[in-house]
């Protein structure tokens, strides 16, 4: 998930999640989760299958609504805001799976990523130089919330980390420290 700063207002916390709980019908998938991502930071969320990583991302992007708690993006509450509006405000996430629209052409798929942009020639140029664009994102120091099955890679490419277990945050801290923690080593790094 990429977080792009829009407001001139300097807030050090790009994204703040405060005590959110999320249900799928009668199933509680997230219980009282809190986390924050600062401007320019790379934060990772690790956890076993079914821990609630995807649910967390779906909630931040507005695909799900929390039953309680608040989500702040650049200081403003965003829970309950429609997904396409959040995309316009700078929260972007690629869809799960390969995220390809199999019924659209390759070019149309690439253009989808620029759905909200108006300038057609710019879009065409960007689609042609898509790989350059990816490198550019990296070098710009964009804020990233990284959610990966591969805990080893995630911890080595991030500044801070949160550990999720059955819908609850059980540990948090600088990624280097967590990577060295014996409990993390045993449960997630297989060492």
């Amino acid at each position, binding site marked *: 998930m990429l977080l792009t700063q829009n407001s001139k207002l300097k807030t050090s916390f790009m994204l703040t999640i405060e005590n959110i709980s999320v249900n799928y019908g009668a199933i509680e998938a997230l219980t009282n989760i809190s986390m924050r991502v600062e401007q320019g930071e790379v934060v990772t969320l690790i956890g076993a299958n079914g821990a609630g990583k995807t649910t967390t991302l779906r909630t931040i992007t507005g*695909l799900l609504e929390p039953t309680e708690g608040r989500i702040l993006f650049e200081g403003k509450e965003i829970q309950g805001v*429609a*997904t*396409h509006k959040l*995309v316009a405000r700078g929260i972007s996430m690629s*869809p799960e799976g390969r995220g390809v*629209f199999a*019924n*659209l052409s390759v070019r149309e798929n690439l253009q989808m990523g620029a*759905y909200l942009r108006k300038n057609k020639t710019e879009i065409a140029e960007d689609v042609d130089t898509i790989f350059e664009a990816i490198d550019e994102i990296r070098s710009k120091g964009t804020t990233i919330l990284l959610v990966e099955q591969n805990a080893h890679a995630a911890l080595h490419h991030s500044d801070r980390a949160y550990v999720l277990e059955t819908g609850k945050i059980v540990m948090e801290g600088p990624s280097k420290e967590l990577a060295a923690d014996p409990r993390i080593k045993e449960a997630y790094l297989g060492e």
Partner: protein
Amino acid sequence: MDTFVQQLINGLNIGAIYALIALGYTMVYGILRLINFAHGDIYMVGAFAGYGLAYFIAANLGLAGASWGALLIVLVGAMITAALVGMAIERFAYRPVRKYSRMTTLITAIGVSLLIENLFVARYGGMGRGFPQLLNDRTYQLFGNAAISKSQILIFVVSIALMLLLQWIIYKTRVGTAMRAVSFNLNSSKLMGINTDAIITFTFALGSALAAAAGVLTAQYSPTIDPLMGITTGLKAFVAAVLGGIGNIPGAVLGGLLIGVAETMVVGYGANVGIASTYRDAVAFAILILVLLLRPSGLLGSTVQEKV
């Protein structure tokens, strides 16, 4: 041979009408996986809107009697009216219940259909009424005894033009690309920044406008309209969509034409094999049962299982 050519012309003609309506069923299904049971009633609403407009312009613009101008105003006006009605139904009846199970939306659709039918019966009575003739209809002799009427030519020309226009919207425009994306995956489309609610509303508007065109065109060929005219025609168009493969746009057109031809062939030849022409309405449903038994995904529908 004359009978065959004649029944083929008639069948393709009525089939073009089914196809226009079937497109609305299939587009809404494609995008929401909803069978919009009120869609046949939109065809009726379109015919009534055209009827009201025809009288209005006759009284106020002096466009009485048959004229191309009156026909164009009535056709376009009815399409716009039905598009607005379709959008309102989506916005106020379906959207609030969309977050519940699909069954809830389906039952809502049945309720909307009954509501529209009964409102119109209460307002206009159950009797048929004559639609003003906007075309100096006449018959052109083809070869042998086969003939085609001006109103049939109108149906062919307008429905082909509308289908080409729809094709262009769906494959060449930004909103059409978004429609295809949404029908493939709703959540992924939201993440691309697509206002999916707006795309869904637009889809209802398109489908409803096509159904209204079918209503006005039919009324030029067989000029009696009544509040329940959408039930049988709507069901046949639904069968056409299923036959072609529901969710598949060329399939809806193919299904519509096939149902139309099957129906008129029963009228033309059924007696030879012991099927009375009064069975014409039963043909579509016999076809529905066969499709569901033999090829539930329809002629052009993909056999790929739905993703979970």
